[in-house]
Structures are given as structure tokens and as C-alpha cells.
């Protein structure tokens, strides 16, 4: 095990120990922070409902990712390679990105209802802009000499794009995916908290009104684990594609 990950696990263990300590000594009220046993009780009482909620949230996030990633990369790539319009497109996308999507959420509910569709829609809109913006700027920054060279070597337009431009823009695309995916996850959970009939966000919000603090924390913990898992998968993707960047020194 590497040193940084050792430190990370040590910190995690320390926090858990602190949690046991703080709750056992009743330094905080159980309604603010339940003891670990409170979470266990919640899991025993409503475990299967939590699993259903998790499955729904995970599915909403997955569908939103499956739509937002290709859409964002596609739009960004197209506008990034059209030199004549890319600056304008970037400005427009940038200002739309600055609009907090949450103010439109009531409209989404009116259009597609309170079910999972509105969560997916909300997630897609939140995730789309940073992905498109990063892809656009990554593609725009690709050195023209690579394009010239590829064409001289006989690459078709499509080959220039897929095999050279998009690949060179990849670090930027991936950072867009990281931001966009984080926003998708936040948006899905928050929108479940605002108005819905299911999902981890719904469980957290519902039990909060019931003052079931154990349930609330269980929901938060599961949402946290979901986010961490997805982030871990993304960092695997990132390191897979950036291996060649880091090897400069070992000649």
C-alpha cells in the first residue's frame, strides 16, 4: 500500500473512532449526530428501502451520465473544431453554465413530472455545460501543426478528429467529465430532496422531517459512498489515459 493511501485510511479510522467517542460521551445531542448504533438500527429497520433508494439514485445518475457525457463531448468537439464560431459558442455556453440550473427545476417538474425523469433531466443539464465547455476549449487549443501533419500523412477529416485532435484534447475533456459528473451527482440527490417519491435524497429529506437522525445519517453515508465510488472510477479512467504524460523523466 502506498504512503498517501495509508495516511488516508488512518484519517478515516481516526474519524470513526472520534465518532464513537463523541457520541458515547454524549458531547453532542443524538439528534445532531447519532451514535454508530443509531445507523445500525436504521439499517436493520429499513435496510431494504435504503437499498431500493440507492438503486434508484444510482440508476438516475447512470442515465444522466450516459446522456450528458456524449452530448457534452459531442457539442464541445463540434463547436471547438469550427474555428469561426468556437469563441462565440464558448461565451454562450459559459454564460448558460453560470445560470444556476436549480431555478429552472420547478419547470422541469412541470414538464416531466416529479418522477426520476426530472432528476435525470436536471442532472444532464447540470453536467452538460462543464463537459461541453472543457471539451470545446481542449479541442480549440490543439496545436494546428498536428492537424497539418496528420493531413499531410493522409488522414481523412474524421481520422484527424478522432485519432489526433480529440486525443490531444483528452486531458481537458477528462477534467470536464470530472466536474460535470460531480455536478450530476449533486443535482440528482438535491433534486430528490426537493421533490420526489424516492432515492437517497428523498430518504434523507423525508427522515429529516421525522427527526429520524439515524436514517438521515445512513442516507448521507450511502450518498457519500456512491459519490466516492464514482470519483474513484473516474480517477482510474484519468490515470489510464494520462500514463504517457508522466513518464517524461525516466529516460
Amino acid at each position, binding site marked *: 500500500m502506498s504512503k498517501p493511501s495509508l495516511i488516508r485510511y488512518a484519517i478515516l479510522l481516526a474519524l470513526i473512532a472520534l465518532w464513537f467517542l463523541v457520541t458515547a460521551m454524549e458531547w453532542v445531542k443524538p439528534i445532531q449526530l447519532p451514535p454508530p448504533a443509531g445507523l445500525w438500527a436504521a439499517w436493520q429497520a429499513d435496510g431494504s428501502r435504503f437499498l431500493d433508494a440507492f438503486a434508484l439514485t444510482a440508476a438516475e445518475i447512470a442515465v444522466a451520465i450516459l446522456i450528458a457525457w456524449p452530448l457534452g463531448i459531442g457539442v464541445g468537439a463540434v463547436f471547438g473544431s469550427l474555428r469561426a464560431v468556437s469563441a462565440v459558442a464558448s461565451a454562450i455556453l459559459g454564460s448558460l453554465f453560470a445560470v444556476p440550473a436549480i431555478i429552472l427545476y420547478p419547470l422541469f417538474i412541470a414538464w416531466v413530472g416529479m418522477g426520476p425523469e426530472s432528476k435525470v433531466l436536471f442532472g444532464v443539464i447540470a453536467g452538460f455545460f462543464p463537459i461541453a465547455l472543457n471539451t470545446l476549449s481542449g479541442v480549440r487549443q490543439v*496545436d494546428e*501543426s*498536428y492537424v*497539418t*501533419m496528420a*493531413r*499531410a*500523412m*493522409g*488522414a*481523412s477529416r474524421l*481520422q484527424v478528429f478522432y*485519432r*489526433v485532435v480529440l*486525443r*490531444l484534447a483528452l486531458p481537458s475533456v477528462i477534467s470536464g467529465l470530472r466536474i460535470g459528473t460531480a455536478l450530476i451527482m449533486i443535482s440528482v440527490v438535491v433534486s430528490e430532496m426537493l421533490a420526489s417519491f424516492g432515492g437517497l435524497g428523498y430518504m434523507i429529506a423525508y427522515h429529516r422531517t421525522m427527526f429520524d437522525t439515524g436514517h438521515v445519517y445512513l442516507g448521507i453515508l450511502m450518498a457519500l459512498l456512491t459519490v466516492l465510488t464514482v470519483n474513484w472510477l473516474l480517477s482510474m479512467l484519468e490515470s489510464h*489515459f494520462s500514463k*504517457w*504524460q508522466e*513518464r*517524461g523523466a*525516466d*529516460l
Partner: protein
Amino acid sequence: MSSEVIRVENLSKVYSTREGDFHALDKLSFAIEEGGFVSIVGPSGCGKSTLLQLLTGLLEPTSGQVLIDGIEVRKPLPEKTGVMFQDATLLPWLTAEENVAFPLSLCGTDKKESQRRARDLLKLVGLGDFINHRPAELSGGMRQRVAIARGLVRDPRILLMDEPFAALDEQTRFKMGEELLWIWQETRKTILFITHGLTEAIYLSDTVLVMGTKPGRIIEVIPVDLPRPRTFEMISSEFFGKARNRIWKLIQEEAEA
């Protein structure tokens, strides 16, 4: 028997810019024989790179034409012309071998065959021990060698080079020149070499074309009657000095005009 592989006829290029039309090249005509080594020198901005792009088929002429093997060039012809620029523009995520094989992968050549060709060429340019290195792990000179190998991978008869060694230090540059001559002799390619280095141009070439500016055109053709193989001592010969001074003067006059 020698024959023309490159023929440029009344070639003109006009760029339309916001300030109006810009005559980058005006009615250029010349021909290069098979197996020749021709350099082009001229003041900055005289249209050397424009000419090379027209020869490559990356740009369309405004009038006139470029013929390669008697056929008009309308788009890049990688099977006939290999190119190389000042920047090696190697793809950073590919190894030296994969970079050299890249043009083959674009036209769907068998993988084993591509690999074999790429390795042979890397050996030819002296990088046989570096086939699995990525560009970031190679020096500037080594990267240009990979680029030479990539330019040769489709076995074109012509190699077009735009200031390929300009970014290298003087010693590396001289060594690369020597190596290029050796490769040229081994492979019998026809080479068109653009440079700002007058010594380099004379040392390497059979013929030096001197270009003038505004508009870009050829103002003098200087044959280099020095025996091959060229040696370092020739650089201090009387002929070499005269040729160098002549070109220098021509370019000075053009730059001041």
C-alpha cells in the same frame, strides 16, 4: 537516366486577408530531378512554407500547378511525398515505433507489417534501441529522427522538409545533416529542403534555389558543384565561400527591398 519527379509551373498563391489580397507566391516555375537534393533559402516571409504546403497538397494554388510524377497535386499524396516540419509533431501518447507506423495505421496496413517497417526505419535513423520510448523521453534531435522515419514509412519517392533542424543546437544540427545525407544516399529519395542556414543549404544540396520576397519568387538558381561525399573541410573551400556570399548578398538585397 534521370527524370523529373517534381515540376512546378507558374505557381501563384494569393491569400485573401482583411487588408486585401496578399500575393505570397508569384508565378514560380522549377523542376527537380529524381534523386536530387534541392534546398530553398530566402528571407523570412517570402513564401517558403507556403510553397511546401502547395507541394504537399495541403493548400490549393491560386493559379498554376504542381506536378508530381506528371500528375497534378490536388490533395496530400502520402504514398508519394513524405513531409517533415520544424516541429516533430509526434503524438505524445504513442511510442517511437507507433509514431513511425502511424501513417500506415491511417491507411489500414497490416499491423505486423507496419511494426516491421517502423522498426527497420528506426534502425536506419539510429534509434533501434528506442522503439518503445515515448516522445517525452527523447531528445529534440531524436524526435526529429523519429519524424524522418515517419516521413519515410510509406516509402515515398520524395521527402519535403520545412526547416526540419531549425530548433536544434548547432552540433546536433550538423550531425542530423550528415545523417540525412546518409539516408538520402541509402534510400535514393528526392529531397526538397527548406532552411535559413546558408551553410547547411550549400553543404547538403545539389542545387540551392534562392527566393525573393514581395511577391515570393525564385531569384536565382545556384548549382553546388562540390563532389560527394561532402566533407567538413569543403565548408572552408573557396567555392563554398563564394556561393555563401552570393546567396547572402541576394537575401540581404531582398530583405531591404
